[in-house]
Each structure stands twice: as C-alpha cells, then as structure tokens.
C-alpha cells in the first residue's frame, strides 16, 4: 500500500502522543521537549528516527522504557503491513 505523504508520520505522532498521555501530561510534554532539545525533532520525525524516541524515554524511565515501547508497538501492530511503520517498529527494538 502506498503511503500518502505525511499520513504515516501523523499516525506515528498520534500514537506516541496517546501512549505518553496515558502515563501523564507531564511525561508527554517532557518527552516532546527533550526530543526537540536534543534532536531538534517532533514526534512525527520519529518515523525516520525511532532510536531518538527510545533514547529519550530510556533517559527518563531507565529500563521501564520497554513497557512504553511495547505499548506503542501494540497500537501500531495492525498497520505493520505498511513498510515505513514496520521499519519504525523494528527500529524501536534495535
């Protein structure tokens, strides 16, 4: 299936946003701010750089990051037939 430009990025952004919001607004804002501060990127940019997201969540929660990644993975699993999303999910577990 062809990706409509920007849609996959938006899906990634919404999923990350939802997963972090489920923990707390403060965690959502802190991860977003730290991503921008360290890598100059937004949630949707994590589609190409999942390692940035992993790094920031790991800095805050240590080994607890695995659960957050697992949660994001569960939400995106049904879209994993799309190549960019599949690559993003694989990147989260690298």
């Amino acid at each position, binding site marked *: 299936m062809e990706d409509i430009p920007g849609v996959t990025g*938006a899906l990634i*952004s*919404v999923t990350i*946003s939802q997963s972090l*919001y*489920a*923990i*707390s*607004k*403060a*965690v959502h*804002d*802190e991860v*977003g*701010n730290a*991503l*921008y*501060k360290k890598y100059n990127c*937004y*949630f*949707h940019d994590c589609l190409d750089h999942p390692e940035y997201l992993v790094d920031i969540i*790991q*800095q*805050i*929660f*240590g*080994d*607890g*990051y*695995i*659960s*957050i990644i*697992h*949660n994001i993975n569960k939400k995106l699993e049904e879209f994993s037939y799309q190549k960019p999303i599949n690559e993003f999910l694989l990147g989260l577990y690298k």
Partner: protein
Amino acid sequence: MKTNLNIFLIFSLLAIFCIITISNIINYSYAEFFSNVINLGATSSLLGLCIVNNFRVGMHGGHGAAWILFTLSIATWFIAERMWELNMLTHADLFWFSGYVFYFIFGIMYLKPFAHQISKQIIVISSLVVVPIFIAVFFTIEWQSISHTDMIIASYPLVDAIMLIPSIIGLTLFFKGRVRFSWTLLLIGMTMFVMADYGFMYFDSIEEYYPGHIVDVPYIWAYVIFIGGILANINLFQKRDKNKRFNDQNLMK
C-alpha cells in the same frame, strides 16, 4: 538542581538530629516542643509540595491519578499527626492506616504502565524484604501480655514494610532513568518510617517512650526525605516553555 537538593537534605537531616538530641539533653519538654514544631513544619511543607506536584504532573493518565493518591496519603498522615498531638489516638490510627492504603494504591497506579515488565519473580523477591521485619517484630512482642494497643503499635512497622514493596519494584525498573532519584528517596523515606515505628514499638514496650524521644528523629527524617522525593519529581517535569517550538505540534491534537 540535584546538588542543591542533596545539600538541602544533608543540612535538614543534620539540623533535625542536632535540635532533637540537644533538646533531649537539656529538657524533655523542650524535646517534645521542638519535635512537634519540626513535625508540623515538615508535614505542612510536604503537603504543600504534593499539591504543587499535582499541578505540575497534571491530572491526566495513570501517573496523574497516582500522584493524587500520594497527596491523599500525605493529607491523611498530616491529619493523623495533628490528631496525635491532640491525644485523639484512635482517630489518628484510623487516618494513618487510611494513608497506607492510598500510598499502596499510589505505588500500584504509578507502576501500572510498566506492568508488562513486572514479573511474578520481581514481586516475590521484592516481597522478601518484609520477612526480616516481620521476624524482628515477632520476636520483640511479648505475646503473653499483648494488648489491643500493642497490636496496633506493632502493626505499624509491618505495614511500613509492605509499603516498601512497590518502591523496590519501581527502583529495579527505573534504575538507569531520571525518575530513579525520586523513587530512591521514597524508598529511603519509607525505610526510615520502618525504623522509627519499630523503635517506637520497642521503647513503648519497655515504657521508655515520651513525645520528642530520640526515636522521633528517623520519623521526622522520613517526612523530610519524602519532601526531597517530591522536589526531585517536580524538577524532573519542568514547566512548559511556551516559546519552545515543540508546542507547535499541539495543533495536531
């Protein structure tokens, strides 16, 4: 910021130790007075900071709810302390035990988003910490002459020990993360409560406890260390900077 917090903790803990010890040497009534004043100051500050922390973390999500429960536990302990000072001991016990329930649920709510990683093995290993405290309490109690009041007093270190379980699980999960510092302080604070409540139980059983006793030192320390834990959490989640471009992505919500 972490250095300032360490300085605050070291200075406060030393000051509390010196004030209580010196006032005990001078006169027991001074010790009672200073113990009550420091307790009021520490518990009020802690409650105030908990409310600030709630505004900082927000009400959304598992952690938002968890920190509200933490504030409730501190609020009930604050009320219990005031009741204890007014000699309303039965009511004070009721509020203290309610606080433990809120604290335990706080631990569970905080850890819930990480439930995927919490195995039965971690829970069992963390629970083992309670065993030596149960044994110590078991051998300190004089079972032949135990009263209803003695049983309530003996249950405090045991319940404190149970409260250590979520803290230990949290610490193993977040060991390499920035939230580790506040979890470490909550664990140390609760350990101080275990020591202080065990000490209170022991000195009360040999009828040597009086308000302002030196065993109150770790008890007040626990509240101050909790203040450190809350401050660490407040500092972790800084206020949002409206000038940061990150906030532009809120347009997507």
